[in-house]
């Protein structure tokens, strides 16, 4: 069998179209600023300011927009064409698009659902009307679905499928003996002869399992400490703020190196830190229920009981690896990564929550809660926190992106996760040595990180804009 080309049978038509679109885009992008400048310079005085951009600028502006659309159309044609043409005519892109069909299906379905119930979905519905928000949401959902359906999408096992003769092969290389398996390494093979495409997809699963969960934990810690610091103030605030600044001032990478140093691991430092940090979600939920339902003791007892039993079980398993049933546990490497991410993110969240609390606690509804004798925790968790949710949500998105990069950095330094882990950071690290000769093994995960983080940032921007417009 031959090596696959990128575009397959569609190439001869679509590649020139793509090139034309790119050339037009480049020209327009160059000409537009010039035309704008010229427009302002040629017509001095108020007339020019009032008539806005000159005719030339309007022309180049239109061209710019047109070429952008053309580019988008060409790319979409690659995807859709690749999906539709018969298998033997598909190129690499077409095959990848075909492998990703569960993602397209779920993306289409979820967007259709959101669009259908737009009115009732509030902020989420408005996001669709916001270009940045919609693109961000699409990128993020793409990776979420890719992670969910990784088993269906990846043609090979990311760790165990090592196929002789596929070491460092370029994209589209056929297997030497394709019996019963998929016939190609779509994005080539890495230095250990594993499929780069499968590893990238499987890596999404690792990253999306750790980053949001770790960020959520960081938020629980930050919120549990930030609320009382802002609301009660005084010595507590001074102390907590000082500690937060201390952690923030500590070089992150150094911290990670310390955490994985064998001596420190042997001393159990990561475990103790996990023991402390993982306690916060438990504390958080307990006071949440306690303050809300203090007037309904049976319900309160039930909720707190459930939280403590379930949470305690998870806590024992995750933090101390001491689950009596042996079900819940966390690999040591993951635990270290998790702890580091929570530890460096929590102080920033703390500062945001504290600032928001300082602002919201002066509102009359807080005073109203005080005058009916509510306790401080009820006020913090049920009166203040819900009204701080907007900025916190935006920060949550940004922070997941940041955590993704952090995971990448950790993997890149070979810290934490096992060396064969398919996560993106580790893959980049493994492939960087041969970057010049075999670019794809590190390049693919790098693009993956970039697109997920970009998606998160766009989503955050969209959320911020839309919540401001309420």
């Amino acid at each position, binding site marked *: 069998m031959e090596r696959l080309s990128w575009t397959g049978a569609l190439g001869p038509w679509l590649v020139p179209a793509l090139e034309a679109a790119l050339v037009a885009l480049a020209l327009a992008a160059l000409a537009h600023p010039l035309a704008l400048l010229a427009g302002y310079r040629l017509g001095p*005085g*108020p*007339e020019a*300011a*009032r008539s806005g951009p000159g005719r030339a600028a309007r022309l180049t502006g239109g061209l710019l927009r047109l070429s952008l659309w053309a580019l988008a159309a060409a790319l979409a044609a690659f995807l859709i064409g690749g999906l539709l043409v018969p298998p033997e005519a598909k190129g690499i892109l077409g095959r990848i698009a075909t492998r990703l069909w569960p993602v397209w299906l779920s993306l289409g379905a979820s967007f259709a659902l959101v669009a259908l119930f737009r009115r009732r979905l509030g902020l989420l519905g*408005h996001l669709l*009307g916001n270009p940045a928000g919609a693109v961000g949401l699409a990128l993020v959902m793409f990776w979420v679905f890719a992670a969910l359906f990784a088993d269906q999408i990846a043609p090979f096992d990311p760790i165990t499928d090592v196929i002789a003769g596929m070491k460092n092969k370029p994209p589209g290389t056929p297997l030497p003996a394709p019996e019963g398996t998929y016939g190609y390494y779509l994005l080539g093979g890495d230095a250990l002869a594993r499929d780069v495409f499968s590893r990238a997809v499987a890596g999404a699963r690792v990253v999306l399992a750790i980053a949001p969960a770790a960020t959520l934990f960081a938020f629980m810690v930050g919120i549990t400490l930030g609320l009382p610091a802002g609301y009660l103030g005084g010595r507590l605030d001074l102390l907590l703020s000082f500690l937060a600044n201390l952690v923030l001032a500590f070089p992150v990478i150094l911290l990670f190196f310390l955490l994985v140093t064998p001596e420190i691991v042997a001393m159990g430092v990561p475990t103790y830190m996990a023991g402390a940090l993982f306690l916060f979600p438990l504390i958080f939920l307990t006071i949440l229920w306690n303050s809300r339902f203090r*007037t*309904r003791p049976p319900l309160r007892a039930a909720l707190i009981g459930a939280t403590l039993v379930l949470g305690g079980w998870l806590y024992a398993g995750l933090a101390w690896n001491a689950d009596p049933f042996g079900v819940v546990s966390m690999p040591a490497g993951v635990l270290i990564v998790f702890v580091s991410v929570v530890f460096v993110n929590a102080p920033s969240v703390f500062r945001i929550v504290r600032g928001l609390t300082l602002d919201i606690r002066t*509102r*009359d*509804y807080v*005073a*109203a809660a*005080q*005058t*009916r*004798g*509510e*306790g401080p925790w009820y006020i913090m968790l049920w*009166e203040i926190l*819900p*009204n701080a*949710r907007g900025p916190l949500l935006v920060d949550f998105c940004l922070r997941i992106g940041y955590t993704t990069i952090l995971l990448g950095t950790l993997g890149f330094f070979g810290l934490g996760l096992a060396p064969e882990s398919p996560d993106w950071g580790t893959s980049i690290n493994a492939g960087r040595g041969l970057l010049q000769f075999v670019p794809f093994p590190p390049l693919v995960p790098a693009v993956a990180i970039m697109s997920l983080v970009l998606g998160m940032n766009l989503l955050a921007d969209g959320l911020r804009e839309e919540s401001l*417009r309420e």
Partner: protein
Amino acid sequence: MTAPLLEIDRLSIAFATRRGDIPAVADFSLSVAAGEAVGLVGESGCGKSTVALGIMRDLGRAGRISGGTIRFRGRDLATLSGSELRRIRGNDIAMVYQEPMASLNPALRIGRQLMEVPRLHRGASRAEARELAREMVADVGLPDPDRILDAYPHQLSGGQQQRIVIAMALMSRPALLILDEPTTALDVTVEAAIVDLVKGLGRKYGTALLFISHNLGLVLEVCDRICVMYSGEAVEQGPVRHVFDRMRHPYTQALFRSIPLPGADKTTRPLETIPGSFLMPQDRPRGCNFGPRCTHFEPGLCDTAEIAMRPVPGASDHEARCLRFEKIDWQSRPPVPKAAAPGEVGAPVLTVSGLRKYYEVSSGGLFGHRRRKLVRANETLSFEARQSETLAIVGESGCGKSTLAKVLLGLETATAGQVLLDDREVQETPIQKRGPRAVADLQMVFQNPFDTLNPSKRVGGQILRALEVFGVGATRRARRERMFELLDLVRLPRDFADRMPHQLSGGQKQRVGIARAFAGGARIVVADEPVSALDVSVQAAVADLLMDIQRTRRTTLIFISHDLSIVRYLADRVMVMYLGHAVEIGSTAQVFAPPYHPYTEALLSAVPVPDTRVEKTRIVLEGDVPSAIDPPPGCPFQTRCHWKDRVPNGRCARELPPMVELGSGHRILCHLSAEALGEMEPVFRVAAE
């Protein structure tokens, strides 16, 4: 007549929103002659500010002028170029906003900001500019101009800041000054001084004023002509006195009847509220916009076609947008609905004696040694409140009203003195330790309707929570039922329970706040400025609601307010506070008639009364309220008192006066002798009709 300075002709302004265009202003015409003062009044959301911003062409991205013209000195502003427009905005038209800090740069000294104007527009030299700025600062009545010029904005009080903003606006000697609610954020006595200043300066420089306000009394004091707006249109305009005495639009009349003029009385002549509520611009009906709320509405006539302004006979340029004004009997009043008899005033339920509250604040920077200072928020207050009685507490901002409320409620503990709730001492008991019954008994209604409800919880849920906390109702069902009853009590539809607060208007939110306060069957309700942030017509409805609940439940109402008109209307007894002291206490009749405490007299004279028959003695207080950190020695009011000379030997500056009993519970804190007090004249005189 000379050509008008500003001529607005059939102006329409629309805002683009997610749900399509909102026509905020429609078919609005108005002209302002040179040197004339025109008032623009109407309820919030009727488009007053939008008109002003339209004149300034400062509508933001969403706003756009969708029809009509604005001519300034005969030139259509729409045809002017950007730089010409800027020149007019800087030189000929100036604007003063409600919030003074919005117009001042907090990082620059006042002098710099003032000098910029002549330097930019006239190319004046530094020295010249500084001299001009000095003159202007003196002109706006600020003492010690040099010190002020070197100060930063945050070092000045709100009143001083607003004076600076006015000075800045007048620096370029504009032909037209637009003031959008310039005094709403200020205290009454400060407001009175600013209003005097604006009037005087307008006359001195021949500046035309466009004065936007919701306060009819102020408009009467400042303006020559008035334009009443409703729902984006002008409904009536004409000379001020003519419109006040012979209004010819039902909305204008309804507006006047909903404000407590002297003579209104909560039992015999209650305020009239305007039925229905203000419609959003996009839901305007066919025909007359006021139709759905008008008592003179005639189907088939008022709801068929757009209605134009028609001249009112009897005065030139008085016109009204009503088809039936000739046929309406303007004197008749609807029959007074029979109010429940006022509850018999019962035994004292709250007794305060010698209450003091000091706060300790530390000042001084990081390196300078910290100094501890005392803020004397409340000084030896003694009073009692009886069952079924309304006790009003009056005073300007910072006089300690809210601190008193906090101490009563247990959010703060007293520094000294005693607070008896029934006969339990509670001054030392913070609210957490009071027990649900005592907490439910003493509740509070808050000032800011936009802040009083938690924006992310449903209305019903917030009332339910209060019921839960107060231990009302055994089951969820019972509490839900009770919650619905409370909504009935404050006259809100039951399906409001499922609404989010942002779906409610200001008045409706305030009602929910009242329902929440009465959730545990409160016997004493402290209402901190409950109506001051509401529109006048809504104010009347909320005040009457409070009175009604009080009558049926025999509640004790402690009504904190700076608005003396509403206090006179609904209080039984009044306590006037100044700088933490109670300076006068007595029944409403006693406090509102001479002999007054000198501060009460000034306060009364500062209240703008929207009634052409009332004549007022003008007493304009100099300066600002001193700081509670270092209060003046002797009498707290001595720095601003007009009567100080009548006390021999300068005792006012040395000794704190005693609380003097003037008979039957009327007490004042003053050194003035009985005969000096006897010479006091009433502040208001109603001219014979």
